[in-house]
């Protein structure tokens, strides 16, 4: 779900960077407002690397297998560090695996990073409740994971299909967006369930991880 180099017009790539810059600035500003921002950097960095590694886990979905995007889980665990973490993760993927692209880094960061921040806000609503049972954590984790990938898919399809150099008529374009979005529904459910299960696991094993950053 990463847009590679060469597909989008240069103006859209520039707009992607222009949109990603203020979100990065806002995230960095919120991080710097913390009591000891430097203390959180190693945690956020190693967790960024860990997310990168966890996304290599194959989830069987016959006849093939899928890799999870995990931007919802990133938002749940990393909070405002999620956007810089995704920016770095996408940069690594573009440089090391030629997955995504350098000119489309800003666009891809918006596609993956904004939903991660939405997930953070969704999961933070859990704090309103006094009792944080495993079921509640699992449900909030599911919604956060499902919503993140859902928004990412929608952004990806809209940006790709409205900018691809094809003179598709409006009806065809809309049908393509709906069909492809529907095709991603199983992935959204898997991401939601996986995020919920990891959130429950972390609550049982290391609850600080859900509240520390």
């Amino acid at each position, binding site marked *: 779900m990463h847009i*590679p*180099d*060469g*597909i*989008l*017009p*240069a103006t859209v*790539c520039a707009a992607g960077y222009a949109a990603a810059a203020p979100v*990065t600035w806002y995230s*960095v500003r919120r991080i710097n407002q913390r009591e000891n921002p*430097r*203390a959180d*950097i*190693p*945690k956020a*960095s*190693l*967790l*960024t*690397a*860990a*997310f*990168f*590694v966890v996304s*290599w*886990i194959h*989830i*069987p*979905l016959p006849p093939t297998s899928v890799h999870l995007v995990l931007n919802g889980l990133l938002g749940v*665990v990393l909070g405002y560090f999620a956007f*810089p*973490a995704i*920016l*770095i*993760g996408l*940069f*690594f993927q*573009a*440089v*090391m695996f*030629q*997955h995504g*692209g*350098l*000119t489309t880094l800003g666009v891809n960061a918006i596609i993956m990073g904004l939903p991660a921040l939405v997930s953070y806000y969704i999961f933070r609503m859990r704090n309103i409740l006094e009792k944080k049972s495993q079921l509640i954590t699992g449900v909030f984790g599911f919604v956060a994971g499902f919503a993140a990938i859902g928004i990412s898919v929608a952004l990806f399809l809209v940006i790709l299909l409205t900018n*691809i*150099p*094809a*003179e*598709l008529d409006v009806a065809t374009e809309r049908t393509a967006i709906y069909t492809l979005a529907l095709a991603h529904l199983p992935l959204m459910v*898997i991401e939601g*369930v*996986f995020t919920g*299960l*990891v959130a429950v*696991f*972390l609550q049982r*094993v*290391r609850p600080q*991880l859900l509240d520390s950053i």
Partner: protein
Amino acid sequence: MKLEQDKYASLDSPLHRWEPRCKFVGLVALIFAFSFVRELSMLPAMMTVTAAIYAISRLPVSFWLTRLRYPSFFLLVVVLLLPFLSGQTVILSLGPLGLRQEGLISVMLITVRFLCILTVGLVLFGTAPFLTTIKAMRALGLPGILTDMALLAFRYLNELGDDLHRMETSMRLRGFRQHRLSRRGLGVLAWLGGSILVRSYERSEWVYRAMIVRGYGNAPPPRDEFQVSAGDVVALVVTFLVAIGFVAGDILI
């Protein structure tokens, strides 16, 4: 999964010797100029410049071919679909499908732009150690939080990858096989992912203490890490002129 980013970073070529900040600015300008190109007539020049840069870098062709493996699937989808979906001018009918001229032109533009940007990107990040390029980005003004995070994350990617590999091997030795999606199987994989997160979190506490002991946050980073020579500046100006030439050429043609 082993990362082989720095495999050819120690070769000797003019691009390996180019000062990292100048190289970063020059080649990124060229990459964005390539993304600007919309005219078919500019493509041979783009391919020639790209091939020349790759040849000067002395990176092996096999390196380029292996790096094409991941993105080639997406490219294949574009090449197969776009000529039949895009445009009005049908130049060849294949049953119910029509091969369209505008779609073919789009495919050529996308493919060449993609390959040229990918190749210049490979030269940019393959002709210097990855950490040196990140330091150059920091020297060019990238926020400290981003560079610190990138350096630390890169440092621990291989180790965490090895952790995952060991844990997956242990699971297989204990009989875990998953050929179809099941709730239990997904739960086990979620625990595997969660364990990696917990391990990295615990390790980060040790890392932070080690960094504090070594003065993290107290001393400013050295400012004269890179030395620019006249040759570096000349190479930067030439690359800039080539990049401007592509943008101007595309507008004027």
